[in-house]
């Protein structure tokens, strides 16, 4: 038989021995374990959304904290920073710290204008943080066709006129009730924000959305539509953190995390959800 002629009857012992040695080496090499946390390095975090027609109400400057320590807002707030916001028209303001709220700064009399470029400069002991944003143009929000709506049944359309320079539109819906009744939603146990009174949503390039069902509660709500700049849009777009992949929001400030954005908030509408 050809099969019998063609096979080679070599003792396999040498190969098996070599294979076993390789397995042993591999096994020994396998004895190591990585560290649980990376070395902590303190980094500043900027949170600021300038809103046209309003002053700089709440500028947050905080720091990252070690992974294995509790999060303490007072400990996280950075004090003693010099924060300057200036515009392309030459005007500027130095933000002052809000007493009793570490890391919060304000300049309520410095009014933000549409279509202006604003620059941020923060001087800390070890670094200078900079960023800039261009505030989008004005726009109008159309009245809702219905303001009393039944949960998951009605679908009013939210419409607005386009805003020049807006990278996207941000919609937030906030419940105004003191003790609102909870909406029983499927998979709510999987939602880390199922107890929040506010929810948010964004839409790209469209000036019309069918009313987004983002509520956790029944009752009166306030709906806000913002025309937002590129910096805040990039933050929103990457704001969901996949912890397994350890993804993070995109930063629009140099030498720090966070965003320095601007927006136009044109109108608010009150809605009763039944």
């Amino acid at each position, binding site marked *: 038989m*050809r*099969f019998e002629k*063609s096979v*080679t*009857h070599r003792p*396999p012992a040498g*190969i*098996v021995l070599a*294979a076993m040695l*390789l*397995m042993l080496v*591999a096994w020994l090499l*396998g004895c*190591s*374990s*990585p*560290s649980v*946390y*990376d070395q*902590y390095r303190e*980094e500043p*975090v900027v*949170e600021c959304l300038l809103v046209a027609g309003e002053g700089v109400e709440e500028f947050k400057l*905080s*720091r*990252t*904290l070690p*992974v294995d*320590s*509790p*999060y303490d*807002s007072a400990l*996280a707030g950075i004090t003693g920073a010099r924060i300057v916001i200036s515009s392309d028209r030459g005007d500027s303001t130095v933000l002052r710290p809000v007493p009793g709220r570490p890391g919060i700064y304000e300049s309520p009399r410095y009014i933000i204008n549409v279509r202006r470029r604003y620059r941020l400069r923060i001087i800390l002991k070890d670094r200078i943080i900079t960023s800039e944003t261009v505030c989008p143009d004005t726009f109008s929000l159309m009245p809702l066709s219905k303001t009393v709506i039944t949960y998951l*049944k*009605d679908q009013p359309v939210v419409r607005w006129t386009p805003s020049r320079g807006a990278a996207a539109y*941000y919609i937030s819906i*906030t419940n105004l009730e003191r003790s609102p009744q909870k909406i029983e*939603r*499927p*998979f709510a146990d999987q939602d880390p924000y199922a107890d929040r009174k506010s929810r*948010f949503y*964004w*839409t*790209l390039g469209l000036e019309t959305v*069918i009313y987004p*069902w983002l509520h956790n509660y029944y009752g009166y709500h306030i709906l806000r539509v913002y025309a937002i700049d590129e910096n*805040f849009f990039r*933050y*929103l*777009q*990457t*704001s969901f*953190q*996949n*912890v*397994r*992949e*350890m*993804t993070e929001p995109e930063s629009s400030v140099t030498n720090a995390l966070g*965003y320095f954005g601007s927006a136009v908030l044109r109108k608010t509408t009150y809605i009763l959800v039944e």
Partner: protein
Amino acid sequence: MGANVFLAGTGWGAATNKSGYFAISHVPPGKYTLHVRFVGYRSRKMVVEILPGKFLSLRIALRPQPIELQDVEVSARYYREEEKNASTVAMPVARLRGLPAIGETDLLRALQLLPGIQAVNELSSGLYIRGGSPDQNLILLDDITVYNPSHFFGFFSTFNPDAIKDIRLIRGGFPAEYGGRLSAVLDITNRDGNRERFESRGAVSLISSKLLIEGPLPRGSFMISGRRTYLDLLLSLSREDNLPQYYFYDLNAKVNLDIGQGDRLIFSGYLGRDNLHFDRKEQNVTTGDINIGWGNRVFSAQWIHLFGPRLFARFVLAASRFQSLIDADASGFTVIFDNSIQDYSAKANLEWFASPQHYAKFGVWLTRYRFFNAIRIGENTGFENRIASRPIYLALFVQDEWRPSPRWKVLAGLRANAFSDGPHIQLDPRLQIRRQLTNRIGLLFSLGSYTQYTTVVVNDVASFADLWYPIDDTIDPQRSQHYIAGLDVELPWSFSLNVEAYYKPMQNVVEFRESHNPNRDKLKDIFYVGRGLSRGIEFFLQKRSGRLTGWIGYSWSRTTRTFVHLNAGKPFPAKWDFTHDLTITLSYRPASKWQLGATFVYKSGPTFTVPAGKYRLGPPGFPIDYIRAGPKNGARLEPYHRLDLFISRKFQLLGIRGSANLNIFNVYNHRNVWYRDYDFRELNEPPKVTDVRLLPILPTLEVTFAF
């Protein structure tokens, strides 16, 4: 495909092409003995006479050989010849059957054991080839592109080994006849069917049963093969509520028809589907249900025509679709995800056996795609998102295999690609040079340029949710260049050694942004666009014949990605970067009825990102807690290692031949780490850290039969 045809005592010979055709030109007149050899078939020899100025046309049929005789010297020689092409692995199906498996032999899992090919984890049959992701591989089944070659959330591949005739994997440097992908080509040809008699074979395992029937037709042959799992039937026996019902099936069919001298029609089809149904019950009342169905449908019609003795043509019309549909209903609240990619292709491939020195191929490939992705949440709720795109891909190629002397082979080609969304036009030159230094030692150099116009968002734990996207006018197509240098050595005792080093830069590679995209977006809003680099060296020592066969494969490789917005713009290791990868497979036949197999895998641990801090940030009035990441993929989990065993005993019962196969996966029960989970739900407390582990020891039994 790939049968050796040669005239004894001369240097004249050829290998048959994909459709079984060959041409030996410029043979002086005279009488010769023609030998034909092909793995799995009995060799034939016949006396032929070449007359002056005449062409001799022959139709040669080979008889199948019993499977236990297949892995003999002749097949070893053929496959060694195939593997002298750059980065090519030709895998006999018989060899797959001697490898340990989970439940049953799996093609993609077997290929994961080759050097240069990584599995991101043991739950996935995806192929990460030389730093490329699975979507960068062109997977062809009878010339049809298969987009999602997996069942059971990626655990099994769609290819039923019983239906396969030939497997050709090109890990890099592939010639101009292939294109549209950056990394590799897996070209699978299904069995044509037995032209002489009816045959059937099948298998029953703990997971599935399968059956193949093949036989002659009046002017051709057919093959039909099916497989179905029965986990759903087993689970239905349980009294436990809230158990999911799951099964998958697939069906392969092929018909060959001779319609005249030199004309043949081939119809080939594949249908595969996974179905998962889950009823959530509370106190015997259904409170919700989820139906998930996904699968591929592919069909091709081929017309093979000889324009003359030296000009062979194959015209293909093909359609391929992958669709996944998720329909969930919880207390009247519905969510529907509908996702599909469709491909309608027409191809014309011509092969010109110009002279003993020149073998040219040229052709055209036209594809009309349809990408569709829709999400609907609730009825009349306003949550509806649709993306539909219908781009066209056109490619023209020409290549020539030139043998200026017996020791030199040059394969040069050019592929021109065009894509309507953009539009984009690219030229991809390819070159491969082989120099045979001695009868036993050969050197090889290969370089080429590659372009890809599609990409995919991969879901690691649910392969059915993979979303394919065509590129658009906001980003350029993905490009890569392959630089390969190789050495192959024929060693004594039927050993062979192949060493290849490669360097593969990639441009415009994409990484999914972790973002919600409630509207139709441009691709620049869905993906980060950056660069990639993969380089490595692979050692592949094989023993193909004898009682003991197998291989030792080792690869050292580094694969990095660089994106402006990730990891502070610094390069970081890809998730599938495994620096060291060692695989040993052995198959031993101590007696004619027994076969033993073992596979040992050791590789560097998977990369992961270690947390370095925590911070709070959010839109106004909506604080969100974040974890500050350390260097992206900057740490590694513990190395991966596993040993699998296979024991097979042939039997004959009531005239039925068969075998009983015992597979033991992960023999020493080493629970490898899949990923490290950090639970940060309580931000005011340190996170809970858990290493999520993979499969334990898993014995499975399979019985095969044939009659």
